[in-house]
């Protein structure tokens, strides 16, 4: 037996074919939308996000130049902007929100679904890892940061000319990959793959 996480309606299991979508009959919450090779796709997208994030850390992010003076910043330097005085904890928070938590989320997903994607049985802690990835999700703010970057660029526009570094493009691609991943992880389809023996 299952219960809708939004409205608590008891739901009996039934077979749902690929491409079909099952919604809660009481509140309309999307429960299942199986897609072929979902685990493999999630793992591939997770690896993409992890690699792009790794690259983004080591390349310049943005640069400004005006009147012969120029300055460059990295993702790391952006988080460190708050390192003065009592703002310091905010540096740690920004680092968590834009780098560490997005990475933690994709690592948890790779751990949870990697063996499944390779056609093997999942690890013993796979279900906990998948649940953890879901809890981290609201706090992984790479896409919010990307929009923040666009706002900042417009704000500086009048003051100096802004150049986009490789880390900016890596970040933009990473956000696209993470969004594609979101749409594959937001219902219960993966739970069935992780726990095929669950009592009906």
């Amino acid at each position, binding site marked *: 037996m299952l*219960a809708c996480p939004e*409205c608590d309606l008891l739901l009996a299991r039934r077979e749902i074919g690929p491409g079909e979508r099952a919604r809660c009959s009481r509140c309309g919450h999307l429960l299942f939308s199986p897609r072929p090779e979902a685990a493999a796709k999630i793992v591939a997208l997770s690896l993409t996000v992890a690699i792009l994030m790794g690259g983004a850390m080591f390349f310049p992010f943005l640069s*400004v130049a005006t009147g012969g003076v120029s300055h460059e910043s990295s993702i790391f330097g952006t988080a460190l902007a708050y390192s003065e005085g009592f703002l310091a904890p905010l540096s740690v928070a920004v680092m968590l929100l834009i780098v560490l938590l997005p990475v933690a989320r994709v690592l948890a997903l790779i751990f949870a679904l990697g063996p499944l994607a390779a056609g093997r049985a999942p690890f013993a802690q796979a279900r906990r890892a998948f*649940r953890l990835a879901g809890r981290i999700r609201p706090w992984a703010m790479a896409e919010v940061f990307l*929009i923040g970057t666009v706002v900042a660029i417009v704000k500086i526009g009048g003051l*100096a000319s802004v150049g986009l570094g490789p880390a900016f493009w890596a970040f933009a691609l990473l956000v696209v990959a993470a969004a594609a991943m979101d749409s594959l992880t937001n219902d219960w389809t993966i739970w069935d793959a992780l726990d095929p023996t669950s009592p009906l």
Partner: protein
Amino acid sequence: MGRARPDIPALTARRAGLVGCRGCGQVAPAGQHACARCGTRLEADRRICLQRVWAWLSAGVILYVPANLYPMLDTSTLTTGASQNTILGGIFELARAQDWGVAAIVFVASVVVPLGKFIAIAQLALTLGRRAPVSLHRRHRLLRLVDFIGRWSMIDVFVVAILSSLVQLGKLAQIHPGPAAVFFALSVAFTMLAAQSFDPRLIWDRGGADAGRGAEAA
């Protein structure tokens, strides 16, 4: 909508003496502490969740005050001299520079969304169990919206970080973050926690379809 028929009580996990897991959907007997399948903590008494909602929400509202009183940005340029901007001041400046689009984004993310969330969460919590004129579906959708949109308020914190790390051009122009950034970030985080602690099943259990419900699950 008309999907649910309000006159027939729905068979919920709670009415059946069970607790559903918010993480994976698996049901467990009432009284079990954690989901056997995914380890999520199971709370049979949803009123406790409501206390958490009020605690996080009040913390978020309180911190939103200093977030607006203290400066968010500390700018000094060769041409305009030193100036300090609060959240609202920064929006006025963008509007004066005719950057309407960006002014609108910052205004929505930093003012409309936080205030709207405070009001929405408080209203949803206060109208639980009451036969409010707003349907269960609409209230549920409002909660989902509040939950989805909350993180976007963090934009201004990132903008300030990017500006301060980038605009370090010696005498020409320098930007530093102000104390408001910390208060604002905490206010957004606490309000997100308030929305996350709000169990949507509270909306459904107490109104409409379940109004004539019998025994409470122990």
